[in-house]
């Protein structure tokens, strides 16, 4: 029955949000109506004033009916909704009534920070970005610098500097549309990836971290829909693929420029949770890209940017056990045109060769006491990042897949001193990025620690807190993805 399907879908979405934002158990339950008749269904769904950080901004707090009677309880518990109870209709009408009443506080689109020009910008030569004060370039020498070499130089500027210099003249402002500039950019060796993150406080705009300069940036991508929540799920070639929280629509965009595309609708009727992977056809987005989604029922589709359409290239082979319990918190990993997804039951990895359209399965036992694990890769090696919790001690561990034996071998751990911070605490971890350089967001009730890990040189670095411009409060990093900052990637 359609109502039940919609309800299940809503529960799924809420569960997902809880996983994303809460350190609380992710099941939603409402007390069964037989326990105590409620005068008004809306008493269950009452917004509470936001608690001290972190405030979950998306959902009103649900108080279970019993706990309402115990006013002493300070912390927030979640009502649990049990759809299989049979009285689905009751719950359905509860939620629907809540939605109509407006008591159920949905996320409102947030405005980008007020764009007021800071004072110091108006003073020439005192720009805070001027770190290179020592080098005075003599105009006598450089005034005849040939114009055809400008592009080669500009392509080698730091990304933020490029955007600052767009106001130099019209030509410099229109370089993003220039084919020759694109070619120059393609020749510059790729550095570290950047991280596009979604914060607890503002899910409608991303906060971008540049690990090379250790700076946070807050561009507004005006083209992303701001009346719904979209989350980054994959990236390739400087483009980030977003999926809205209802799993309906895909969007692709370059977070640095305004290049943006909404993908055509998929041919499915039920919007169940999917895992997503993205690959480039060639070396850059000029050659096109492909996006794959796969669901627990073994259904999958591939989007081809050159044709701008979805296709169903076949069926999952019977050797792959269904339902496919995909690890949705893990990003897919892409190596040489093949995507790798984590699965459980049985534990292991399923891979899809995007070029030849072949699915394979690898049974790989997971390390014990492992939680919040995700896949990553470095130089063709498949890695696993996760939390190991044993006797109240939690540590971040890194494993590498031994291809010969199909076993995970531990290769690194977060420095002990940093792990001590989490001793005795319930910790959740999200891994942003899945190649080379990873950002880990570690969250316990009171704190959010950010760390980057460089897989190739095993370097752990702390990440400065994310603060919006003219703000003071540190933002909590919920999720996100790494992407290669590429000025000329076109969606």
């Amino acid at each position, binding site marked *: 029955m359609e109502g039940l399907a919609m309800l299940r879908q809503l529960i799924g979405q809420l569960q997902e949000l809880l996983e994303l934002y809460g350190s609380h158990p992710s099941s939603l339950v409402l007390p069964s109506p037989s326990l105590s008749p409620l005068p008004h269904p809306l008493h269950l769904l009452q917004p509470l004033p936001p608690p001290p950080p972190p405030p979950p901004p998306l959902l009103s707090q649900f108080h279970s009916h019993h706990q309402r009677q115990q006013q002493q309880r300070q912390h927030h518990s979640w009502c649990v909704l049990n759809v299989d109870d049979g009285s689905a209709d009751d719950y359905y009408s509860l939620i629907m009534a809540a939605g109509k009443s407006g008591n159920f506080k949905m996320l409102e689109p947030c405005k980008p920070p007020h764009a007021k020009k800071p004072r110091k910008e108006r003073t*020439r030569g005192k720009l805070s970005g001027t770190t290179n004060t020592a*080098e005075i370039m003599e105009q006598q*020498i450089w005034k005849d610098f040939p114009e055809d070499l400008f592009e080669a130089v500009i392509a080698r500027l730091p990304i933020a*500097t490029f955007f600052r*210099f767009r106001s130099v003249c019209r030509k410099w402002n229109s370089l993003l549309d220039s084919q020759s500039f694109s070619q120059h950019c393609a020749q510059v060796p790729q550095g570290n990836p950047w991280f596009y993150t979604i914060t607890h406080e503002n899910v409608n705009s991303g906060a971008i971290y540049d690990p090379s300069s250790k700076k946070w940036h807050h561009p507004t991508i005006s083209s992303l829909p701001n009346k719904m929540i979209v989350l980054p799920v994959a990236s390739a070639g400087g483009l980030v693929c977003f999926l809205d929280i209802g799993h309906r629509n895909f969007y692709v965009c370059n977070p640095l420029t305004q290049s943006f595309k909404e993908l055509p609708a998929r041919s499915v009727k039920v919007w169940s949770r999917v895992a997503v992977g993205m690959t480039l056809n060639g070396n850059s987005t000029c050659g096109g890209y492909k996006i794959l989604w796969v669901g627990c029922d073994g259904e999958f589709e591939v989007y081809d940017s050159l044709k701008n359409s979805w296709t169903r290239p076949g069926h999952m082979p019977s050797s792959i056990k269904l339902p496919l319990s995909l690890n949705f918190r893990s990003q897919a990993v892409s190596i040489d045109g093949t995507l790798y997804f984590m699965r459980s039951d049985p534990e292991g990895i399923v891979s899809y060769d995007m070029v030849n359209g072949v699915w394979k399965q690898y049974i790989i036992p997971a390390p014990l006491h492992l939680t919040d694990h995700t896949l990553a890769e470095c130089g063709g090696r498949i890695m696993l990042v996760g939390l190991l919790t044993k006797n109240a001690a939690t540590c971040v561990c890194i494993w590498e897949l031994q291809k010969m034996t199909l076993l995970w071998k531990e290769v690194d751990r977060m420095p002990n001193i940093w792990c001590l911070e989490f001793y005795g605490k319930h910790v959740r971890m999200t891994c942003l990025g899945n190649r080379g350089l990873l950002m880990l967001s570690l969250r316990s009730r009171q704190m959010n620690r950010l760390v980057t890990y460089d897989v190739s040189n095993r370097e752990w670095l702390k990440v400065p807190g994310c603060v919006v411009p003219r703000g003071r409060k540190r933002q909590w990093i919920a999720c996100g993805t790494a992407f290669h900052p590429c000025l000329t990637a076109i969606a």
Partner: protein
Amino acid sequence: MALELKSSDNKIFEVEELVAVQSETIKSLVEDGCADNVIPLPNVDSKTLELVLDWCKNHVDMKLDEEKLKEYEDKFIEVDQAVLYDLLLAANYLNIKDLLNRACQKVADMLKGKTPEQIRETLNIVNDFSPEEEEEIRKENLWAFEE
């Protein structure tokens, strides 16, 4: 096989072919069979040509030692602005890709700390935006200005 190159100030440099063909320009001349005589390079003076040839020679010698080569390149490019400018133009004219890239990177490093106004002054660029247009563009790209 040795080639002879003549700088703008009429100085002759004798160079191994393997070294000289790092320049795509010279390479084309060799392939077209025009390199039997002295090759005139009217756009490069002897001081600059000497440096360029040193770069090319080291790139042949150190081809397999990436670390050593990088060390050499970093040291090589630490030159006066006037010399850097001449190197850039020479690398462009002679079409020596890695030298051109390295020199462009050095110039980019020198420019990155400047304000747009300073860029215009240094590179003699006319501001063809109206004040309103310029303000609009700064606003669009405000995130890059924020610390």
